[in-house]
């Protein structure tokens, strides 16, 4: 049996959206999960794609419980840092969905989301464009600093800037 096991996928098929959630996707038979994100762009609306977690009651967590450190890699400029010790979301682990056809994509690992007694940690790398054809990459680490059971994950941006084909896929690492 494979040690990387498909758990769940959601895909947006209804046109422009501002958020996409995947729920009941972190069963406690796994300690670590791998999340694949594809955030397609609607037309030429470039908006950053942020991440929040979903709690045991199905509510999206927007409290100031997120901390992160992010390096933005830029093909045509010097790299820069984005950090926070207290934010209401994780800031662009998958970068920004940019002018069509430049989606925000990446892989994010979540550690121990199913545990009610542990913080949830993440590692991620993302890639997209900057609106003028220059690559942007992200190296990202984060913690959700509340010991609670996490049951899902949401990507969101603004202005209904994500399009059909946007999807989230969850794998468990057994």
């Amino acid at each position, binding site marked *: 049996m*494979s040690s990387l096991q498909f758990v769940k996928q959601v895909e947006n098929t209804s046109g422009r959206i501002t958020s996409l959630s995947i729920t009941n996707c972190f069963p406690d038979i796994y300690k670590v999960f791998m999340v694949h994100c594809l955030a397609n762009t609607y037309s030429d609306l470039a908006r950053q794609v942020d991440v929040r977690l979903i709690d045991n009651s199905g509510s999206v967590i927007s409290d100031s419980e997120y901390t*992160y450190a992010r390096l933005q890699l830029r093909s045509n400029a010097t790299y820069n840092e984005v950090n926070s*010790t207290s934010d209401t979301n994780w800031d662009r682990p998958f970068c920004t969905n940019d002018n069509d056809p430049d989606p925000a994509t990446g892989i994010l690992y979540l550690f121990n989301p199913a545990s009610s007694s542990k913080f949830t940690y993440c590692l991620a790398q993302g890639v997209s464009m900057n609106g003028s054809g220059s690559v942007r990459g992200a190296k*990202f680490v984060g913690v959700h600093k509340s010991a609670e059971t996490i049951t899902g994950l949401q990507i969101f941006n603004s202005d209904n800037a994500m399009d059909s084909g946007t999807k989230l896929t969850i794998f468990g690492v057994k």
Partner: protein
Amino acid sequence: MSSSLILLNEINATSGATANITFSDTSFDVYFLQFNDVRCDTDDKDLNFRFTSSGTADDSANYEYAVYELRADSTHVNRGATGQTSLPVNISGQGTGTGEACNGNIFAFNFNNTGEFSHVTMEITMFDFVERIFGWQGGGALKAVGARNGFEFFWESSANFTSGNFKIYGLNKTN
């Protein structure tokens, strides 16, 4: 199609100054070590590791690393050193407070290729002893040839583990 990520061994550290995880299947070119919820019994201690040969940690001063340290509290830092007797998982002390832990992914290369140096890439996420997030992205090497069969993790100042799940996988290259 057969599986490509093959679990070879798993250990759960709950005590003791070292945590050793080894493999016996030498058919893989690439190994993947994943660890989570690694915790120490003493505040402000660094976690380190060595490669093992026939189960014994190689503590020669032949380790070298270069990593990029992400942190939320201040400017990120380039870290590196030569002639080390181990490789670091973090360089700001691990914490013992609620939820504070270390987690990460390590890919290992050339562990069965006795004609080449052994390499690792590291991706780490952790909270330190004052709840500062640290990330670790980079690589390391043992600049000596020889067969390796696993890893030994240990804390600064011989502090003890209180938890830690370690799994090692092989990346299968056949259908």
